[in-house]
């Protein structure tokens, strides 16, 4: 048994440990069942769910870059009705936290999604995706304007019932503290950052973008130092004072990476792209974080949060 107390409080929830799998990188979790035991994680976050099912963008939807990858999945998902009917019963059986990530094109849609989900058992909280760079209508446009962030958050929050609302921020803004602050004023219970960075890969022979969607979102180890910086900014400028927890993510692939985000100010962390390289990457992150704390004599994992000198 580990001597580290890994339990964390996160937006009113008690979590086994601070490690999650990130939205869009663990499907509806059943796909990962064969490779790992999700109950060993603090929790996981669903792929973005929309009101109607979405086919998403045509292939190619991904391309590898140096130390990272672009994706433009385009919010492909089965829609909220099917999610509730077909996926939730299985999800409910898992003894771990789950945030349902929701996306829409108009504020109404987000509110409707929240109302449909907030009264369901087996859902720990909601994550608001207002930062997807891969769909034209909406998505990231909400995510860059503090006024819109405040509005959408304050309208969705009442529809969440007693479930915590986490707002996922885009890194593609001049001043992330402003967008973070807007989400907090709007009533967010937690912030998650970062979503992907808009980027493009061009095939030089055909002189066309490799992705069918032309642009995509950059994720993976390449973005980690930027994500760590943004987490530390938001923690220092906003979260620390507002006492709002941060879910930190971007390129995490081992215990040290997770510790880096926590020291920068995150209360919990998510593993995204690394799951593609190894289906059980998130378990190894949780394990590595535990071993890091043991070797450093850290008794309570939550002590790491914001402990940057």
């Amino acid at each position, binding site marked *: 048994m580990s001597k580290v107390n890994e339990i964390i409080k996160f937006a009113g929830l008690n979590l086994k440990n601070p490690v999650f799998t990130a939205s*869009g*990188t*663990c*499907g509806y979790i059943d*796909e*990962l*069942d*064969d*490779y*790992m035991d999700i109950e060993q994680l603090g929790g996981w976050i669903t*792929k973005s769910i929309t009101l109607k099912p979405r*086919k*998403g963008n*045509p*292939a*190619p*939807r*991904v*391309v*590898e*870059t*140096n*130390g*990272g*990858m672009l*994706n433009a*999945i385009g919010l*492909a998902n089965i829609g909220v009705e099917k999610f509730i009917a077909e996926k939730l019963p299985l999800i409910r059986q898992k003894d771990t936290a789950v945030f349902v990530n929701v996306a829409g094109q108009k504020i109404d849609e987000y509110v409707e999604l929240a109302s449909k989900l907030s009264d369901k058992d087996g859902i720990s909280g909601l994550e608001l995706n207002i930062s997807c760079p891969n769909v034209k209508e909406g998505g990231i446009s909400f995510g860059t304007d503090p006024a819109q962030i405040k509005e959408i958050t304050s309208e969705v929050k009442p529809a969440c019932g007693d479930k915590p609302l986490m707002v996922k921020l885009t890194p593609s803004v001049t001043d992330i503290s402003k967008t973070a602050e807007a989400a907090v004023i709007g009533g967010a219970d937690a912030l998650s950052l970062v979503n992907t960075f808009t980027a493009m890969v061009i095939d030089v022979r055909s002189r066309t973008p490799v992705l069918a969607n032309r642009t995509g979102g950059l994720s*993976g*180890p390449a973005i980690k130092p930027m994500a760590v910086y943004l987490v530390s900014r938001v923690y220092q400028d906003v979260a620390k004072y507002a006492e709002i927890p941060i879910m930190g993510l971007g390129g995490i692939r081992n215990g040290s990476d997770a510790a880096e985000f926590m020291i920068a100010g995150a209360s919990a962390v998510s593993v995204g*792209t690394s*799951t*593609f*390289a*190894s*289906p*059980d990457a998130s378990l190894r992150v949780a394990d590595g974080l535990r071993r890091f704390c043991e070797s450093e004599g850290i008794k309570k994992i939550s002590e790491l949060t914001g402990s940057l000198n």
Partner: protein
Amino acid sequence: MSQNNNRSGVFEASAARITHYGEKICRLAFTLSGEGAKAFELASPGQFAQFQVEGLALPSELPEGLEDKAVRQPILRRPFSFLDVYRDGEDMIVEIMCDIIGTGTARLSALNTGDKVSILGPLGRGFEKPAEGRKVIGVAGGIGIPPVEHFLRQLCRDNPRQECFAFAGARCKADMPIASVQQGKDPAKEEYSFCRHFAAATDDGSFGKNGLVTEAFESWFADSGLAGEECEIAVCGPEPMLKAIAKTAHKLGIRTQVSLEKMMACGIGVCQSCVVPVKKGDGSEENKLCCKDGPVFDSREVFPE
């Protein structure tokens, strides 16, 4: 080692044999033992595995024109179909044929005997066995050849009375991923000796007939006197070729399985990157996943006329 009910998981493999055929093609054999051997005992032709290439050395000499691509530092695994999978005592041997086109394939090609590589697999749905008594015609182009070769070979291993016919195409001889071709031997007498017929075609006539493998297949079929319902086709290769074969096959009423290639990130159905639009029975379209629902599909599903 994680594993699932189908015993697919992440396993450490050891490079057992690396054979280079010119600058652009190499054949790699990997040894799996323990849990890995158990998992790959169930591997079937047309399935694939995801090979980790991050952390492998970049060769100091690269095939011409690959220098710029090869410097990219990879993070994702690379999917490869099997050329063969067989038992070796307690261990299993997994062989692949690798077309060296970028950073990951260049790194694999530079492996030394004994080097360790992490393999995730076996993955996806391979070729289905033909209906009882049907003859199987394999048609393959370029790097689509290995899985079709594997399928035909395995069918004949399992059932010595199985009749198989094989057609292989490539741009030129140097690009044809068949060991005997590269060794200057006759495939019909070597790895394809179990086939009733083997024919090759190259765009430049440097090996086999001059022309497309699809044409070679079609003219042979026309002369063969075979009826569509006596046969099944298994095909893998570039998409235009798959389409052409599917079109002919549908006309002739031959059940056809096509193996597709899509850019993959995860290989296990979580990332949704490898979508294949398919026509459902009711005429509506939906996306299937190449990695999980494929890579082998029914031709009518993916190439409806």
